[in-house]
């Protein structure tokens, strides 16, 4: 890989990670003023903020690598659904509180292993962002772990909601461990992460938590993919309509 390609690939990679973060942050922010009680409303907003913060750092770095005067907001607000590269699990609807918490558990455990690898990146900016995110993720996982126990081993109704959410989300977890040539090359170059290798540890920890929460680990009998090539579920379009409307309705403005 030539230096020039490496730079372009890193830019694309930072954009992907920014997309993951902004989309999940947006979903979590939909909880604000809708939480099951005030403390939890605040906590969910806090997690949303962490993700919006990550998105800004990744996009700012992508913009810097692009070097064409674009800003973080150009990445977030002016790309169409087909240009977004987030993994699908992040764009799925907010759902009920069980759905949100199961998704967080699956993603938080993933990040618990992914971010420390990224923190070792030869690219010091990416390593720095990851380093900051590790701390946040520790707090996120403590929350989603505790909620999984409470709701999984709470009432019959909460158990059912959790198991249903788990079944609905499981097929989207496989994509977390996919890698296309670009991500493989970046991993080989010491910049990205060999994510496929993370699955056994991820599965072991997720399974342990689910079992502790009296939940059943779903079967691996389906998988939906496409986020990294811009092939999205119908949910992302509606999310971007909301997010981008104002920015696009008044093009070229400063806010």
């Amino acid at each position, binding site marked *: 890989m030539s230096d020039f390609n490496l730079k372009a690939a890193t830019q694309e990679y930072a954009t992907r990670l920014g997309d993951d973060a902004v989309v999940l942050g947006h979903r979590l922010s*939909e909880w604000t003023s809708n939480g099951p009680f005030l403390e939890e409303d605040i906590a969910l907003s806090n997690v949303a903020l962490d993700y919006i913060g990550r998105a800004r750092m990744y996009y700012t770095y992508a913009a810097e690598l692009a070097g064409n005067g674009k800003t973080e907001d150009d990445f977030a607000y002016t790309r169409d659904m087909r240009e977004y590269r987030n993994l699908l699990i992040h764009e799925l609807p907010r759902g009920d509180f069980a759905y949100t918490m199961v998704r967080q558990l699956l993603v938080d455990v993933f990040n618990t292993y992914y971010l420390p690898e990224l923190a070792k990146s030869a690219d010091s900016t990416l390593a720095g962002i990851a380093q900051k995110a590790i701390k946040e993720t520790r707090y996120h996982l403590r929350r989603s772990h505790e909620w999984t126990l*409470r709701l999984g*081993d709470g009432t019959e*109704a909460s158990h059912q909601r959790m198991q249903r959410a788990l079944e609905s989300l499981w097929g989207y977890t496989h994509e977390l461990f996919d890698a296309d040539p670009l991500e493989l090359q970046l991993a080989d170059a010491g910049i990205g992460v060999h994510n496929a290798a993370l699955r056994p540890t991820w599965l072991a920890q997720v399974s342990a938590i689910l079992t502790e929460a009296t939940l059943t680990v779903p079967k691996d009998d389906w998988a939906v993919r496409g986020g990294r090539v811009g092939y999205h579920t119908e949910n992302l379009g509606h999310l971007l309509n909301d997010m981008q409307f104002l920015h696009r309705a008044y093009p070229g403005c400063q806010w």
Partner: protein
Amino acid sequence: MMTPEQNFMRKIEAEEKIEPKDWMPEAYRQNLIRQISQHAHSEVIGMQPEGNWITRAPSLRRKAVLLSKVQDEGGHGLYLYSATETLGVKRADLIAAMQSGEAKYASIFNYPTQTWADIGAIGWLVDGAAIVNQISLQRTSYGPYSRAMIRICKEESFHQRQGYELMIALAHGSPAQKAMAQDALNRFYWPALMMFGPHDAESAHSAKSMTWKIKRETNDDLRQKFIDQTVPQIEFLGLVHPDQDLKWNAERGHYDSGEIDWKEFYNVINGNGHCNRQRVEHHIRAHEEGAWVRDAMTAYNAKQRAKTTEQRQAA
């Protein structure tokens, strides 16, 4: 020896704080419960009009700032519910009273947020008016309320600056953005003035509250402060002041202003605002949707306690 009542009034006179365990007149306690819980409800209901724009904020920075602000309001609600609970009531009962309409929240939150500029106007004018009131309440006689106000004021000032800064960006932006800012100012200026409540002569709770130093300044005095401080801010933005009768009164050293449309004020309070029903229904819906979560927590905690007891007995 002084009676408890005399001792209470002595402390009030001496600017000593009344603390939860101190004796206090029942009317003082009820007055505080009403006022602090209303303040708490206002923080919580106030999350909705601003929350309405979180998913649509036009830049990532603004999105983060707004999300963080609404989160802070939730935090203020928490402090204030805690302060109210020191008076011997439960948060669940306070919330039920608000949902049933028995307890009030600030009527300003019955106005809809129609454009992005409203987010700026709320931060600047609504938080601005709230701060004028809250600064005065830092010296309120009830200790927990006073301390909550001190804490809240710091964050609110920050929010107000952010709101004003948002207005600057719009007012100094494109013509469409400037028009948006003017429109928001026009819609929120008068309701912000109404936040200080009726004129002193017509204020139901004022006299006693002043004696007990729950309130420290009158509605009209506080409103005047706000009017005066807002004039140069509007000028700096280059926007037209919504009050056409506004005039500097050199003798008073204050601005004289046009008459407030109190009919409109009572109209909104009495249920004809755009969002009265929506705000309460939203709160009830979220509360009801969260019932199973709270039930599960309770069940889980009970199970855990039972396990611990079992383990202890086995040991």
